[in-house]
């Protein structure tokens, strides 16, 4: 046994790049080793000065917006205001950013309501197109928006040509636009930092999950929530000693994730959840059960190598699938997860640090440069239909 152990380490170790004396592995996505790129100097962003009713006043009304999972739009605005990629000269800008906090409309429980955001967005676009010439120059093709909450009706028609920075979504969904930059949901970095335990604590839980299996309020019979996948996990594995799954809310949730080998990240009402971010930060291999999900920074991060993807129809065989993964694969995934640049790319730290999610967003935008020549419209040419969409959206905000 010890012999195998030694032989295992000799081979791959020579190919490792050492970070702080931990053997980790280089992360190469389809775009190359781009997690470590520095966006400064590669692009310039101009931030529109919108009246505070679009951003500051909304935040003042509900400060909870700073901690819920769509808080990225607020932090992104703050980051861009003081970042070296910002330029005050719009003529030399590659990208234009409109700071409007559309998801900061929360229920008393803290869940976001999507009803006002189309009107808010439309009103903001009307403002920038009338006060600055840059929108009409390209009909928004070199503008980007942080449009996080998936609206079932689809993307606002006015944003057809713009780039959306979205929390990760679902392929072939009306809400997901091609060419979007997908970002992880916001998870509070200080809170996770405070719950770190020493890495020598042995991982003794095989599979870990905490969350709902049946959404009793909205879908009492099951079958709609999570497309039945979470209910299937519960019914198949509730008495399996390897699966530590329940609906409790323990105070040691983060610590437990650091003691687990696999963390389930099944879909809920939406295919994504902050669990993925938490699993990556705590070094637990994510088991993603969501068909057709699009994961954040998919061109920079090789999610296939890091996580385990299980089709929803294969959920009854989950234990067979997980135990039949070869041990070398598992160790390799853990090494990839231990890479600090991987963890940094998922976080929105305050203040921004190098290689964090803010920089990855800018890297993604930089990778889309230079803009195509046909993006620039001839004067007088119009592509967008300003009156498209449901009548309710056309009301001024």
């Amino acid at each position, binding site marked *: 046994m010890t012999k195998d152990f030694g032989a295992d380490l000799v081979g791959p170790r020579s190919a490792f790049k050492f970070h702080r004396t931990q053997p980790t592995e280089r992360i190469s996505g389809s775009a190359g080793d781009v997690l470590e790129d520095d966006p400064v100097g590669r692009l310039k962003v101009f931030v529109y000065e919108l009246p505070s009713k679009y951003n500051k006043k909304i935040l003042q009304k509900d400060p909870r917006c700073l901690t819920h999972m769509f808080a990225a739009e607020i932090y992104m605005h703050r980051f861009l205001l003081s970042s070296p990629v910002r330029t005050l000269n719009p003529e030399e800008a590659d990208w234009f950013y409109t700071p409007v906090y559309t998801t900061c409309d929360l229920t008393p429980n803290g869940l976001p309501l999507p009803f006002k955001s189309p009107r808010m967005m439309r009103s903001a676009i009307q403002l920038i197109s009338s006060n600055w010439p840059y929108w009409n120059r390209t009909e928004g093709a070199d503008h980007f928006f942080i449009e996080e909450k998936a609206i079932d009706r689809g993307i606002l028609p006015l944003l057809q040509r713009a780039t959306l920075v979205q929390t990760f979504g679902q392929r072939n969904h009306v809400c997901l636009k091609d060419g979007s930059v997908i970002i992880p949901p916001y998870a509070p970095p200080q809170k996770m930092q405070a719950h770190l335990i020493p890495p020598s604590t042995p991982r003794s839980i095989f599979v870990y999950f905490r969350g709902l299996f049946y959404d009793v309020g909205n879908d009492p019979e*099951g*079958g709609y929530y999570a497309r039945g996948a979470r209910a299937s996990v519960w*019914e*198949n594995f509730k008495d399996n000693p390897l699966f530590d799954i329940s609906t409790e809310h323990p105070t040691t949730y983060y610590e437990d994730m650091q003691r687990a080998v696999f963390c389930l990240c099944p879909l809920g009402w939406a295919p994504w959840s902050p669990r993925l971010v938490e699993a990556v930060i705590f070094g637990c291999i994510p088991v993603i059960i969501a068909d057709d999900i699009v994961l954040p920074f998919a061109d920079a991060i090789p999610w296939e190598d890091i996580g385990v993807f299980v089709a929803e129809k294969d959920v*009854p065989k989950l234990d067979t699938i997980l135990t039949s993964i070869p041990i070398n694969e598992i*160790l390799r995934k853990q090494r990839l997860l231990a890479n600090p640049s991987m963890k940094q790319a998922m976080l929105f730290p305050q203040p921004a640090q190098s290689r964090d999610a803010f920089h990855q967003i800018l890297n993604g935008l930089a990778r889309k440069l230079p803009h195509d020549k046909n993006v620039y419209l001839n004067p007088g040419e119009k592509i967008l239909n300003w009156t498209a969409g449901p009548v309710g959206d056309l009301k001024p905000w």
Partner: protein
Amino acid sequence: MKQLTALQQQGRRSNSFRSALSPLDAATVDGSVKSPAAIFWLVLHGLCCLISLVLGFRFSRLVFFLLFSTSSSPSTTTVYTALRTTLASSAVTSPPERNISAGERASRVVVGRHGILIRPWPHPDLSEVMQAHTIIERVQSEQKSQYGVKSPKTVIAITPTYVRTFQTLHLTGVMHSLMNVPYDLIWIVVEAGGVTNETASLISKSGLKTIHIGFEGKMPVLWEDRHKLESKMRLHALRVVREKRLDGIVMFADDSNMHNLELFNEIQKVKWIGAISVGILVHWGGSEEVELPIIERDDSEKTEKNSQVPVQGPACNSSNHLVGWHTFNSLPYVERSAKYIGDSAVVLPKKLEWAGFVLNSRLVWEDTEKPVWVKELEEVGGDGEDVESPLSLLKDSSVVEPLGSCGRKVMLWWLRVEARADSKFPPGWIIDPPLDITVPAKRTPWPDAPPDLPSSVEQVTSIQENADRRATKNRSRRKRSSRSKKKHTPKVLLDEHVSTLDLRDN
């Protein structure tokens, strides 16, 4: 029933709804024609019952939708679409809810109700559980190699012991702790009174690398003398370490102590000499309930921590430097302390136990580079002086490294419970060959002997009085005899009863 009444109420409330659905408008409006209307009501009720049986709550949902949507934009198309979606969803649900076959599957994910997939035998498969455990083990060993101690040193455990009643009990505890240590281990067992087969057979079961040495002199009965002899035995073991030039970390594993396995990870950090915190579990002998003096201790006590369990070990200031020692304050216990082994009183530890210290074995080597503050082993304990703790090996005790986050973590527990020194027990606790003649012991009455009831009661009371009056009693034997006493009195009664019955039958 509820649905029926609800439907009836709906029926009465909204005539418009019924007129939209039913083709027989005229018949309902005309109230004079009673019997066809009544029949019509019955038929409609029956129809509604049937529909609601099939659709369940969806029927009422459909009804409410139609009722309240008439306010905004009534149109037959909306009614038809509503009906269609209801029927479509009902068709999906009419097969049993938990179906084994899969839902729709294509590259596009379909919105709608999916079945909950459950496999036929939703219970763990044992071979997979075993495989999962091998995976976990492998992950943990990988973690250890990455984050644990890089070059682990051999642990040299020194245990003084002697053959006595409960030696097996004490030694097995230590043995199992040492067997679980993940590092290389050498176990030096020093036995008072010379090497015996019993101890040797016990130690050999561990499978560890052991050095079993004997020490001249029987273990004395008084606790004071016992502590002195144990110190001498430990020094003797250190001499062995020096002669054999054993390399590693020396720790003192007394056979009544309880070790946390994290202790062995922690002591790997020691450079020359380290100190750890030892929790003292003070045990009260005797059957009386004694209120622990810890609770009634004066709060102005400065030498002890304000915890229920006293702890011996290093004391640090805020910058984690060693500034002093927490020692055991034996003043509250002095009157009640045990004098000799087997005493049913509290056994007190020394001020600083040997077990709370760990040394780098090179400190006791000769002809090797050592720090200036350590004395040679020959100088220490030579003239019969009492070596109380390894601090006597040092000229300057401030170089001791505090371990376990500066003594805050207690990984070692001290407790001394011993049976009476002259208690009789069969060697190895095995009676071999089995006894063919059994003789009642002096104080244990033979079970089948029918003593008179009053005399047996007397015997019981006399025994209890003896227990109260005389503090010194063989605890194990008394326990056995008192237990058997209590059991036997009802049994004796029964026997008597049976025998009288027999007489009567005869």
